[in-house]
């Protein structure tokens, strides 16, 4: 078993602040939207906590952004510009998760320090980190002070448009949070990816193909 350092400390710090914050945002956001159906806390407490954590997460986003902007690790997000190559690789990955993983086929994507995402992950995380999270943050800030940002709210089509975009992204993350947690358990052991991202930063790579975990290129 070989160990490769793929999750540097700033990324791990960002990820876990983000994970805890996102769960809190989902809970408080659900409470804000569904008063009477869910009664975990008062509406006012939910709004106050939602606002504070929202700003913490915006600050936290910059840990991620600045780390990748100012290190060569940004290469992990470099897109595959050839659609043919990308979709072929994605299809192979899909086949692996849909069938190969059950019979112990090797993971078609081989992890390295500069290539830690499989094709499906790289596409998904680019959409999440460069589009959905910033959009969620911007719409959240506009909703935080509708009066102060009246001009911007009006520019984007009114408060209902801003709110609908915010809620649609929340709905996406309501799906993604389950999906993401489950996919994290599909390492060579159910906790392998968690240990790497939580604690060590090292992914354990099996040198011989034949298991469901990541393999070295």
């Amino acid at each position, binding site marked *: 078993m070989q160990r490769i350092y793929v999750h540097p400390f700033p990324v791990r710090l960002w990820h876990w602040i983000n994970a805890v914050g996102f769960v809190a945002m989902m809970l408080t956001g659900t409470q*804000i*939207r*569904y*008063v*009477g*159906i869910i009664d975990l806390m*008062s*509406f*006012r407490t939910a*709004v*106050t906590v939602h*606002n504070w954590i929202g700003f913490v997460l915006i600050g936290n986003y910059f840990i991620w952004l600045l780390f990748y902007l100012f290190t060569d690790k940004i290469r992990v997000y470099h897109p595959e510009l050839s659609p043919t190559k990308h979709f072929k690789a994605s299809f192979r990955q899909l086949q692996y*998760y*849909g*069938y190969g*993983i*059950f*019979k112990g086929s090797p993971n078609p994507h081989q992890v390295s320090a500069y290539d830690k995402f499989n094709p499906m992950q790289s596409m998904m995380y680019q959409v999440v980190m460069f589009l959905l999270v910033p959009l969620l943050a911007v719409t959240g800030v506009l*909703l*935080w*002070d*509708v*009066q*102060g940002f009246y001009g911007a709210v*009006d520019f984007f*089509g*009114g*408060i*209902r*448009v801003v*709110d*609908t975009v915010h*809620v*649609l992204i*929340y*709905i*996406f993350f*309501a*799906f*993604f*949070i*389950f*999906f993401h947690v*489950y996919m994290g358990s599909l390492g060579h052991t159910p906790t392998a990816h968690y240990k790497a991202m939580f604690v060590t930063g090292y992914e354990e790579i099996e040198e011989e193909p034949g298991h469901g975990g990541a393999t070295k290129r």
Partner: protein
Amino acid sequence: MAGSRKVNTMSMATLHRNLVKAAFAALLMLLPARLMAADAAPADKLSDGDKQCLGCHGFEGPKKELPGGKVLSLHVRGDGFAKSVHGAIGCTSCHADVDLKTHSQKPKTIASSREYSVAMTKVCGGCHADALKQNETSVHAMLLASGNPSAPICTDCHGSHAVTPKTAYDTCVGCHLAAMDAHRKWLPNAGLHLEVVSCAACHAPAAQRMVDLRLYDGATKKWVAEKEGKPEFEKTARAADTDGDGLDAMELRKLIGQLNRDEAAQPKNLRGRIELRIGGEAHQLSGKSKAIKDCAICHRQGAEPFQNVAISIFSADGKPLRYKAQKEVLGSVLSVDSLREFYAVGGTRNILLDILLVLAVLAGLTVPIGHQVLKIIVKGELERAARQDKAAKGRDQP
């Protein structure tokens, strides 16, 4: 010659004095004339009797000396009174005790302007009995009963002669100057709340609330009012409401389109306000300890204020003109544009997004469960295939 010069000199001095006097008199005459000119147009609506009253009271001159050396101005701005909601009923409706024959000879005895105003609240109650009754249990009435010299009475909120419909907030903050700061200490988005929720909506908790969707002109930054002599709003709204059961989301879109026919002008939008269904119930103002502080009163699906919805503009004389809308417009996907300036989180949410959320959560749960089920099926199939393969190999061997 000398005598003649003296006479001439005296004549010149007299002429000069007379000219100065004439000019001063002309100025004195011009000043009220200018004041009268300003009052003239709206004052034309007043009756001859009212004009007679304003003949004296329309100027700043008349004053009454009160005990203790205080002075009470008897000036009434004619234009303000003419424009007021009381302009049509005339001076004597409230001042019925005034007898023109004895008015100047037997002036009333007034101990203080405050005492006079308090006594006049009974006159208000002559017409506004319901309002006065509701006011009896209000925090304002309790302060008055306790002898508080600053306790608000009718005229403190509504004015004495220039009585016009007012926004509650403007009226309230006239005295409650620290209201904004006090709300900021506990209320998220306090500025927005004080803009879109009338004070009485929370401070008269027993009253029924409603959503008043008022037409706002972003270009002039004013609420839209009908042009004088051209009432069109109700006719246009009635035409849009084809079923006659209140405007639904589609009809509301149509109405907004009608009201924004002029494509060159900046579109007018509806801004929602939480108001009392019956404005007079605002007189039931409670103390702040009893005011609504529970956000869930509004921020929940089916909340009481969202059960009654109306579209409104102001009439030419400042009264709200309302037309009923169906409550479903508040949560309709078709209202994204027509109600682009009103949304209450939790209270006016769109049910399609709720359905989408349930589907997303189900999908999120289905992926791991489905994948594990698939794993069991595939594993079982693979093991069975392996067993069959082994059995086949066993049969082939001698």
